[in-house]
């Protein structure tokens, strides 16, 4: 029986965001169809998987996670190199040390760390601040200057601090991460605001602040799916690739941390799965860049992506 295939003809596509410099540059987005539906459109780039590196030794990491980086967690340069060896597509440097309640590193110190990491690895860089809006708008411009021309992805800009961060990204040639809490309209608003400062849409990735499995995953899933549909329908303001900070969220959950959840099975396996399945799920919704914490999750996720990208005849 002949079945007339239903193929959508989408008028729009996801923006293609280039991070890093040739020959090591990577590309995110660019799709003209829903995730992994090879039969109806182009999927020029596989979703990207980054590993996170901190500028200070992380506190309170579960052992399963800390053990994955033996001897390097006090040295961001060595840590970044190890992540590169583990197969990360990008290195995501988190400037947690700038946190005012922690080491309170200043702009100069943050800039120096970023410069050192950038010099040590080939992989393109994502650099994110400490998450305190006021502090980030102080340090990120310095970081942007220190790694000028590297075409990194800097963030996270919010409704309250986007102005200074966009200026720095514009001046020093970096892409920017726009971060809004779990709401598609807010995400679009920030994209518009940033775009109106002069940054082209293909230099923005948006971060919907994803929830991991069991903790708001469904909101993120639907926001990302709706954003993809909007992008494909021609809404350029929602066509920026989505970045998902999965690792930090997944490793906060009870499911990832608790040794014995009463019949929950092996903790290490559970934690890796929590991270990898959250990422795989959000990739299916339309996420483009994934920042993970554990090399094993990265591996599992990349292997999965390879399968999803495998062309087949239809």
């Amino acid at each position, binding site marked *: 029986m002949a079945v007339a295939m239903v193929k959508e003809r989408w008028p729009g596509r996801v923006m293609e965001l280039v991070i890093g410099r040739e020959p090591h540059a990577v590309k995110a987005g660019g799709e003209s169809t829903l995730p992994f539906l090879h039969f109806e459109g182009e999927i020029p780039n596989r979703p990207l998987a980054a590993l996170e590196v901190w500028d200070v030794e992380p506190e309170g990491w579960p052992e399963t996670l800390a053990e994955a980086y033996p001897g390097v967690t006090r040295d961001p340069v060595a840590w970044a190199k190890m992540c590169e060896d583990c197969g990360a597509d990008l290195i995501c440097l988190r400037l947690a040390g700038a946190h005012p309640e922690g080491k309170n590193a200043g702009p100069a110190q943050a800039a120096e760390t970023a410069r050192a990491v950038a010099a040590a690895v080939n992989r393109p860089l994502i650099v994110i601040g400490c998450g305190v809006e006021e502090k980030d708008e102080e340090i990120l411009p310095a970081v942007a200057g220190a790694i000028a021309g590297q075409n990194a992805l800097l963030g996270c800009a919010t409704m309250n601090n986007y*102005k200074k961060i966009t200026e720095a990204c514009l001046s020093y040639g970096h892409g920017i991460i726009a971060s809004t809490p779990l709401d598609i309209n807010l995400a679009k608003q920030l994209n*518009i605001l940033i775009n109106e400062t002069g940054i082209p849409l293909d230099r923005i990735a948006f971060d919907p602040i994803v929830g991991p499995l069991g903790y708001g995953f469904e909101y993120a899933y639907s926001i990302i799916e709706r954003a993809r549909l909007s992008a494909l329908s021609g809404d350029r303001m929602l066509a920026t690739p989505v970045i998902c900070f999965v690792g930090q969220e997944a490793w906060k959950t009870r499911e990832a941390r608790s040794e014995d959840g009463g019949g929950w099975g092996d903790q290490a396996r559970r934690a890796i799965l929590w991270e990898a399945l959250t990422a795989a799920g959000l990739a299916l919704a339309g996420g483009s860049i994934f920042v993970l914490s554990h090399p094993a999750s990265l591996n599992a996720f990349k292997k999965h992506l390879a399968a999803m990208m495998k062309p087949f005849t239809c």
Partner: protein
Amino acid sequence: CGGGQGGLGSLSPLYRKVFLSLKEPAPGDGEDDLARLSRAIRKEAGVGELRPGLDVLRGLPKTLRDAGWKVTVSLAEGIGCGCAEIAEIEPGRVGRKYFGLAVDIGTTTVVAHLVDLESGRTESMKGAYNRQSVYGEDVISRIIYAGEHKDGLEGLQKAVLDTVNGLIREMTEELNIKRVDIKAAVCAGNTAMTHLFLGIDPTYIRLEPYTPAANKIPAVRAGSIGLDIHPQAWVNCVPGVAGFVGGDIVAGVLASEMAFSEKMTLFIDVGTNGEMVLGGGEWLVACACSAGPAFEGGGIRHGLRAVSGAIEHVEVAPGSLAVKYSTVDGVPPLGICGSGLIEVVAQLYKAGVIDRGGNFVFPGRTPRIRDAGEGREFVLVWPEEPALPGGIAVSEAEIKNLLRSKAAVYAGIRSMLKKVGLPAGAIERVIIAGGFGGYINIREAVNIGLLPDIPLDRYTYIGNASVKGAAMALLSRQARQALEEIAGRVTYLDLSADNTFMDEFVAALFIPHTDLSLFPTVT
């Protein structure tokens, strides 16, 4: 009712006097006095079933005979009752004038019209602040007060009655007439106000699932609630639709004539609750988007209603940020009204002081923008200008509050359209009712995304439509039937029932909107 002829224009008042000249009973015709009277009334006045009060019946035989069978009969009808009451029989032809009272009972203001029921002319109009305000600014506080204080309900009822009675006194004094000559009343109020006016417990209007005691309330005698008109007069309340879409809106829809129009009409009452109705002759949907009092100047430090001295027009020069403004009546500024606020937001955005999200982003330093403790504010009127000691300023928080209000209105409109499955372009005309609307700059309201971006000539302003509708009901039987019909036909949308509204709300929290394609004429 049988035989209600005549359009809305033809006079068939709620209360009227008819002069009748009856044929004396003759031997053999066997008809009793009441039947004789009723037949004559029906013929003369075209009413259906008649009901005499016992008092009238008791005096009937003697009155008829003493008057030589020439009498003046008073007929009282009601909203939603198919019969007329024979309220009074007087001998001979009575020339004395009689009046009807139409009242819009608003949460903040009460407006009354006194109508000559014979000529149909409105003889006096008065307004006053609702004296319930001492119990709380908004409906919710009053509902809570009524429920939680001993004698709370009585106190609130008394306060609103005092307000209305005060207006009655003013009007009767002005016209030099007696209060007992007011023979009928129609009240239109939001559901909670109607409850409080009649002393009915409003508690459950506030609590999920927001159920009123009654949307359709039978008429009551003025004397039974203490309304200062003829004690036997019937007080009719315009039927409502739901806890947050009341008789005031139904009366407004009547006055707007949208309910019988082919045109797809949007009716918006930009009061605190932000009620709106969409539809036409075939169907009507309504919702309350709970916009908040910002458009009436509420919740804003220098907010004012559109009274003398309220800033109503504002221009902010890009670059220098010089401010030009004008006030109601051209007197020195005392504050800023809703329409002025709309212009401020539009102008501040255009001048680059705020971004689309309402955040202050002006790059330079200027004394116009100053720190106000809890965030920044923009100075409209300097202290030295002939005004208040501290000048007049609008803060970032206030702008965000206004954006929430405008977002709620726009989201309400979008939700209604979405629920019935119509595009925004389907709206053929917009009727704006409510206190602030007379001064509103529609262009700027569209620019900030309060109102839909459709050709400006599709907008009309109708003022206090609620009291107009109530007055229509005083005068026309068809209007009364229409009120019933409208209240029964309006489909109420509960905006809290799902996510549609919230999604639209956040999308609208932007100047003009997150979806810029909805505002093609706005840059």
